[in-house]
């Protein structure tokens, strides 16, 4: 894991916690959205803006803005996995990550120990990338594209 992000922020104020919880659900769409948030949290617009900027600067929040459904923006996606022999793990990691179409890649504790998201412009390109990964690694790719989505939304209450 990235070392810089493993240190916990020591203290979050009540206002910070309220902000984090409220803004994970979403910002109102209106002319002065932070004024509305301030009223809900018994604060002021200026204070909300200051605290929110600080939370981003401290990297307690990694991002603030519209969460787009990547699939709606065009392109194709899939989740795929490999069962990599332990001795080859580093080499296969490099081989798989070398494709710019690999967006995320995680090591997981299972016989299928490498799980990655392939993001491309088209379905055909997904198939091509999978074929190339199989050629390069000599391993068979488990391809699990989503068939139906029930929920996407991370809520981590503090």
């Amino acid at each position: 894991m990235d070392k810089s992000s493993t240190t916990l922020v020591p203290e979050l104020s009540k206002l910070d916690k309220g902000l984090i919880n409220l803004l994970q659900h979403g910002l109102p769409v209106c002319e002065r959205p932070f004024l509305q948030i301030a009223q809900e949290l018994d604060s002021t617009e200026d204070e909300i803006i200051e605290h929110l900027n600080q939370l981003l600067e401290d990297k307690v929040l990694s991002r603030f803005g519209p969460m787009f459904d990547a699939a709606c923006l065009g392109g194709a996606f899939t989740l795929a996995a490999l069962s990599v022999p332990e001795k080859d793990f580093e080499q296969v990691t490099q081989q798989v990550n070398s494709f710019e179409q690999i967006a995320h890649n995680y090591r997981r504790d299972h016989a299928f120990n490498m799980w990655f998201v392939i993001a491309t412009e088209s379905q055909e390109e997904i198939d091509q990338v999978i074929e190339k990964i199989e050629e390069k690694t000599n391993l068979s790719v488990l391809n699990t594209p989503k068939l139906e989505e029930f929920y996407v939304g991370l809520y981590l209450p503090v």
Partner: protein
Amino acid sequence: MSVSTSPSDALTPLERQYVLLTQNGLPIIAKPYHWIAEQLKISIEEALALTKDFQKRGIIRRIAAVPNHYKLGYKFNGMTVWDIDDKQASKFGDAVGKLPFVSHCYLRPRHLPGWNYNLFAMVHGKEPEEIQHYRSQIKELLKEVLVTRESDDASQSIPSQSNDMLTSTQILKKTGLRLKRKTESAS
């Protein structure tokens, strides 16, 4: 993959500009939608209407803060996977997706015999016990629809069980998904 094929051509040039402008985040200022309006040279009313329309169409899920898991103490995640009855999969997938601690929930294809799971649900927690507990709660919900498979294939190296949880031990690569700045005819 019907869910993943809506082309970006479905966006008008203005909508595309909106996505390119905001996909890396919004400035935290008193009037963020005015900023969008100014940048796109449209009125504030148009900026608000466009934003609401994006939300209605599901293109924007929400305008939100994304917390840093680790900074908030959520160090553990588990990809729980389930082998459930296909006929009931949509109904039960929906129920699992509604659990407050599930962040992503999808139906995906099985690949028998090596991979028998069709429902995936991600859970996050501050302690290893916490995600184990979440897994148990999902199991309780799915107990009637879990599939029992006879492991009659002796050559099968991966034993068939009705569920599992894959915890992540290392991030090997992580990049954002971005709409590229190029003309729509490119693909």
